């Protein structure tokens, strides 16, 4: 068996990765909860944000955490525009069409990045990744601790936006009853686009938190997207608390199955959970009964 210290470290590492997963899943679950669509381009949009963080660092030496100030609004704008002018009009209000349009978008984005940047893997050329925090006998990587704290904070912030602001109230109204919301004067198309923009803003934050310890190539986002789907399904489609809990659970599961099964088979634990939850309880842990 493994020494307790290794197990504790694996659990903590899992929690820290899981918090960033949760942030990625948060965008997905928000879009699902309001628009009732699955955004297949979520992974590709994450890749776009990661390239933006890398570009800001490589060209202007902007610190990835500082870059958030610019990249989060930019990604919000991109998401707003995509939903308002591409996904919404192109899909004629049909759910299967949304699936296909966002699949098309992800193909365009992913391969557009491939054409621009080739398949080379790039990382930030900084030593921030090597800093550690000592916690008793444990060594924790500083950027990952920052990522954990920031991801939890953003989740809380999003919850506040949804529950304490007029925009949030409008979003929840549209999610609950589209026609009713339109009748009381809420601009549904605008709210849809704002929600999609918020989902992309979550991705921008996640990209800024990931990049100090991770790398980016045109396929990077694809590695996260199935994990994010798993979290969303596990937590219950549309549930914010579910995304957070699901993200932390999946982070720990991935960390332990990587420890027990090795890297190449490690991911299979996630997919098996995914299939099992879909088949046995598609509403997830926190989802309302369908």
């Amino acid at each position, binding site marked *: 068996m493994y020494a307790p210290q290794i197990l504790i470290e694996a659990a903590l590492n899992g929690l820290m990765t899981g918090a960033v997963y949760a942030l990625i899943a948060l965008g997905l679950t928000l879009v699902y909860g309001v628009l009732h*669509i*699955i955004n297949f381009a979520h992974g590709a949009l994450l890749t776009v944000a990661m390239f933006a963080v890398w570009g800001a660092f490589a060209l202007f030496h902007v610190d990835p955490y500082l870059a958030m100030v610019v990249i989060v609004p930019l990604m919000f704008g991109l998401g707003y525009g995509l939903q308002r002018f*591409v996904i919404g*009009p*192109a*899909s*004629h209000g049909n*759910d*299967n*069409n949304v*699936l*296909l*349009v966002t*699949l*098309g*978008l*992800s*193909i*365009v984005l*992913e*391969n*557009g*990045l*491939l*054409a621009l940047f*080739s*398949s080379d893997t790039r990382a930030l050329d900084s030593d921030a990744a090597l800093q550690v925090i000592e916690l008793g006998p444990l060594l924790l990587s500083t950027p990952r601790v920052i990522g954990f704290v920031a991801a939890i904070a953003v989740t809380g912030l999003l919850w506040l936006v949804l529950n304490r602001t007029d925009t949030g109230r409008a979003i929840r109204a549209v999610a609950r009853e589209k026609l009713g919301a339109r009748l009381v004067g809420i601009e549904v198309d605008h709210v849809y686009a704002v929600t999609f923009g918020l989902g992309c803003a979550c991705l921008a934050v996640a990209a800024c938190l990931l990049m100090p310890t991770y790398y980016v190539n*045109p396929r990077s986002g*694809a590695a996260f997207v*199935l994990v994010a*789907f*798993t979290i969303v*399904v596990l937590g219950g489609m549309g549930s914010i608390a579910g995304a957070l809990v699901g993200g932390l659970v999946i982070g720990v599961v991935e960390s332990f199955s990587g420890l027990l099964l090795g890297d*190449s*088979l490690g*991911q*299979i634990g996630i*997919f*098996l959970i*995914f*299939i099992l939850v*879909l*088949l*046995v309880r*598609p509403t997830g842990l926190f989802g309302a009964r369908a």
Partner: protein
Amino acid sequence: MSARDLLPAIVVLAVLAALPFLGLSGALLNFLVTTLIIALAGLGWNVLGGFGGQYSFGHAAFFGTGAYATAILQMKLGWNAWGALGAGIGLGALVGLAIGYLSFRAGLRGSYFALVTLAFAEVFRILANAADFTGGAAGLLLPLRPGLATLQFADRRFFVLLLVAFVGVALLASRWLERSRFGAHLIAVRENEEAARALGVDALAVKLRAIALSAAITAAAGGLYVQYFLYLDAGVAYGTWISVEALLAPIVGGIGTAFGPLVGAIALQGLGELTKHLAGGIPGIDLVVFGACLIAVIAFAPQGLLGLRPFRRRRKARDARAATVGA
């Protein structure tokens, strides 16, 4: 099916079969083979996705199973290539039944069905990449032994003929779906499952038969792929590329029509080659065009190329004729 139903299919197949003997270059023959393999995979997807309305994002699970079974049965157990291909098709259908049984019984449809099929394909990809008997990450290399028994031809034109035969069978199966009772049940389930069930259609059984047929056709595409290219690894067999190609072809060509997948595959592959030719060696540029085509088709031509005006008018005329004959 009447002779009138079969005539267009026979003409198209005859043209395809004649093409390789018009002195095409090696590159064009390769293009034809790839296009026909994708058309076949798309014909399979169209049975479940087009006629049945169940959008799978993981047809790679069937393509890869057909491909691996065809290769492994020959290499490890010394089977005859025809037998191995047949077994691959059967195994593909079984995998389809298993995935279909699990997900349809759980009531998954729409986005949920798309996601679960995608996840199954990914599980297969990871397993095939890690297992020993699939050659792991290094992949499988089928030995070159041209001959009729080994289904390998020194002359590529004969392989095109073989593919045309398979595409022909799949095309006839689709024509049959357009005309048969089973096809009508399947379309009824697509349009409104509850209403179909209320009329006495066994929706689960109909969907299971559809996914088995769909998986078998796509598995055949996989088996033929490995017979032609003689190489297979997990990324080729179970990768997302084939899941995407298999759904793009019917959607661009005309979803839920017999000829849609063939038209779509020819249009997309032709466009892809043209883009690569014009843009030089930029990687991924052809796929950017594919993705843009997908969005454009859904936005502006939801019935695909075959739904565009010149084709539509004729179909309307034919339907009107059929209606008067029926009345």
